């Protein structure tokens, strides 16, 4: 960062822009000026004259015509008002508004009916105002693009490396004649490889758009979508030489992309599979090990998801922390609900497994309606924390979504944890003993009732964990559970009842099969094919992928 030739390091002393930059036309010069004025130069006290100017600038924004608004934005950019960046940001966020009496304000929090606001000119807090008194200065997607590009150019000179990188990323495909000159200079002086590489690419795209044949060579091999957009345009363009070479470059890229797509499909499949595994693995315990057909399993998942929502409500503004706390909380809530179900219903149905299906179906109806009555029939918003949003770019064409990756990892962790509990702890030993021969286990001094409660609590708690994870992927609402219950049973049965490994393999493979089929069969047909496959598979192997051996299998 030290080595980066910052324009403001000179302007801070001299207050002037390099003379040779003056020849560059707008908006580049405007943006440079803005960059200069915005970065740490807020000494000048705002005078009345400036305020009058500022009001004129802002008033130009308050028009219905979006083209005029665009010009007004340019005007703000080219003014050297030090508040301009704040205004633009507020405009971008939809927080720049106007009161009934014509004052410009920035809304600080736009939830609910009354919003805290501050004066856009002076920054003075004005207390809360109702929506009735405020009118938003609206922007559309085109203006949003314009604003972002403007801010990106400014950020190119930011002292913050991340900002510079983001800005360089943003400028791909956005470079025009005005920008190309200064960009070349920035590339010369850039210290960060990534920034330099991105900006060079951006420049090459621009040169291709200008019809430069040599640019094709530079773009060859890049997987970035913007590159493909540019090459596609060139390939369909009027210049035959350029079109042929662009076409060739494209074909080369397509080859590489095929591999990427295969990897992407595999990831999609594993990700979908991990959701299935998470949803099913609790069932593998209650159903597979205890033989209880728990139709309320889906609702236990739902409880976990609602717990996440509740914890986030308790910790506003800290979704990440809340999510982490939800893991134990979701486990506990669902486990306790499980204990209640076990004690309240299932213990009376010992040895009548099919009847547990009926009773727990009743429980599931009650739990669903309970959520509808107590919380709301509407879906609840669960916020995804920053570190789980977006995706991890493996290369320019292949990026893995972070939330799904987190769920995949979480599913594997839960699986390993469960395996450890079942294999390495006393509880696991006792559970296995009770399942294999209840009477014998009891005569060995194992308290079977206690084991029942704990096992059911464990299975239910894991369902709660699934809920926490699902809250990051799908609706948190009263119907959440219903959507997963059937799939869960399929996975457990396909994998082989009573076998955790079976559940893992079954879930992941069903996910992959589904996602491989989807592109050519469509989502519905893929699902039907998978179901028919399961039916036929069960005919071939009536006890699933990994059948239980020994006497327990006859149970």
């Amino acid at each position, binding site marked *: 960062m030290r080595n980066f030739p910052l324009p403001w390091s000179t302007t801070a002393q001299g207050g002037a822009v390099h003379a040779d930059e003056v020849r560059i036309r707008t908006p580049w010069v405007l943006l440079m000026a803005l960059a200069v004025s915005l970065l740490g130069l807020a000494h000048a006290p705002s005078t009345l004259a400036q305020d009058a100017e500022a009001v004129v600038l802002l008033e130009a924004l308050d028009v219905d015509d979006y083209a005029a608004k665009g010009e007004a934005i340019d005007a703000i950019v080219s003014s050297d008002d030090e508040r301009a960046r704040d205004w633009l940001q507020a405009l971008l966020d939809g927080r720049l508004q106007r009161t009934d009496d014509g004052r410009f304000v920035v809304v600080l929090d736009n939830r609910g009916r009354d919003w805290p606001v501050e004066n856009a000119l002076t920054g003075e807090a004005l207390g809360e105002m109702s929506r009735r008194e405020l009118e938003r200065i609206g922007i559309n997607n085109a203006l949003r693009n314009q604003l972002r590009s403007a801010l990106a150019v400014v950020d190119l000179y930011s002292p913050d490396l991340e900002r510079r990188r983001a800005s360089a990323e943003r400028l791909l495909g956005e470079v025009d004649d005005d920008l190309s000159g200064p960009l070349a200079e920035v590339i010369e002086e850039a210290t960060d490889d990534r920034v330099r590489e991105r900006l060079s690419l951006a420049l090459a795209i621009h040169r291709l758009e200008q019809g430069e044949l040599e640019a094709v060579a530079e773009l060859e091999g890049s997987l970035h979508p913007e590159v493909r957009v540019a090459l596609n345009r060139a390939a369909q363009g009027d210049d035959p030489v350029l079109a042929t070479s662009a076409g060739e470059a494209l074909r080369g890229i397509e080859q590489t992309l095929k591999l990427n797509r295969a990897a992407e499909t595999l990831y999609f499949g594993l990700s979908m599979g991990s959701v299935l595994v998470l949803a099913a693995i609790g069932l593998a315990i209650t159903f597979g090990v205890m*033989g209880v*057909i728990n*139709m309320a399993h889906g609702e236990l998942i739902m409880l976990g998801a609602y717990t996440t929502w509740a914890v986030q409500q308790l910790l506003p503004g800290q979704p990440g922390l809340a999510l982490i706390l939800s893991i134990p909380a979701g486990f506990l809530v669902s486990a306790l609900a499980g204990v209640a179900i076990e004690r309240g*219903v299932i213990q*009376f*149905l010992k*040895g*009548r*497994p*099919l*009847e547990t*299906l*009926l*009773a727990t*179906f*009743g*429980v*599931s*109806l*009650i739990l*669903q*309606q*309970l959520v509808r*009555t107590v919380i709301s029939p509407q879906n609840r918003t669960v916020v995804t924390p920053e570190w789980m949003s977006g995706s991890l770019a493996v290369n320019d064409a292949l990026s893995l979504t972070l939330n799904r990756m987190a769920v995949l990892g979480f599913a594997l962790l839960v699986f390993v944890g469960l395996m450890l509990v079942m294999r390495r702890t006393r509880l696991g030993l006792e559970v296995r003993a009770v399942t294999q021969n209840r009477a014998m286990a009891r005569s060995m001094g194992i308290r079977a009732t206690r084991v029942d409660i704990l096992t059911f609590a464990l299975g239910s708690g894991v369902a709660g964990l699934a809920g926490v994870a699902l809250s990051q992927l799908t609706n948190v609402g009263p119907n959440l559970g*219903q959507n997963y219950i*059937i799939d869960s*049973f*399929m996975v457990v*049965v396909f994998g082989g*009842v009573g076998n955790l490994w079976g559940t893992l393999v079954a879930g992941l493979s069903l996910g992959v099969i589904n996602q491989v089929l989807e592109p050519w069969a469509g989502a*519905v*047909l893929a*699902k*039907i094919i998978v*179901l*028919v496959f*399961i*039916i*036929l598979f*069960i*005919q*071939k192997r*009536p*006890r*699933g992928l990994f059948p239980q051996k020994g006497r327990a299998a006859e*149970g």
Partner: protein
Amino acid sequence: MQSRSWLLRPFSERSTQLFIGVLLAALALVTVLHLAVPAGHPLNVTAYTVNLFGKYLSYALLAVAVDLVWGYLGILSLGHGAFFALGGYAMGMYLMRQIGDRGTYGDPVLPDFMVFLNWESLPWYWQGFDMAWFAFAMVLLAPGALALVFGWLAFRSRVTGVYLSIITQAMTFALMLAFFRNEMGFGGNNGLTDFRDILGFSLRNDATRLGLFIATGVALALGYVICRAIVVSKLGRVCVATRDAEARTRFLGYRVERFQLFVFVISAMLAGVAGALYVPQVGIINPSEFEPIFSIEIVLWVALGGRATLYGAVIGAILVNYAKTVFTGVMPDAWLFALGALFVLVTVFLPRGVAGLLAYRFKRQRRSSDDTATPQEASA
């Protein structure tokens, strides 16, 4: 002659006499109260109520079909809704074709939804449904054929217990997804609706509704007798033996899977008939009848009424659906609580269902013990 005596044999049973008697008396009573008592009189049974009863009776027939395989064969089918819906679709297709050119677009052959989705001509599987005899045959054949193929695959490879239950569920789930697809040509989510008449009688007419109600009642009586006849026959005894100890029955030399297949197909056909009677009375058939949840609900009716009694299934179906009607009207916000609690309480406290309660109340010495013996719980 032998077949006649085979079908008449159940009438020597007290329970069958009682059931058929009560059913016919109820049919007659409702008919009289509907036709003879003037509207507005407290004893008058309105057309709305007759229609409602008709629906309950078709559900009751469906429950009987489920009880036949669950109660006496030990197969917990979580996919009987599929057979019910297939019968319903067969009937629905007939009713659609009866609309003729009275549809919104006035196309003499294509149903509205096909015109709407730009279909050029009627797909092959819609051919013939304009003829009542063909459609009514399909009501039996379509579910029967599905049950035959599915059952043959499943029973041959000895899929049992929970595995069987889950794949029946997979079957109905897959069919639901398929019927939701508009490309299938069954009207997608909107299903088949806007029916006009059946066998020439207008469906928007109270007399037709009464007729359908009586027809459903008669079908239920017939279905009941057929099931009873199966149960008391030698075939039925093999079934019960299979239910209680499949391996032992096999070792005794019985080809268990053939018995299973036969009874399963009969049951599916009964369910199909129930669906066919249901559709003209409610006026719509759509893929939601294929929903696995619905199939589970049917099993719940049977459990609530009392498994392996047949008449218990009838009681359960009527009771639950009546409760649903009452509760969704009286306490719309809370009826799921009531329904859920009902299921829990009955399974926990009334393991033999309402029929068990009745049997306990009116315990009689001369109750035959062989066929009504309660099933030993088939384990999962």
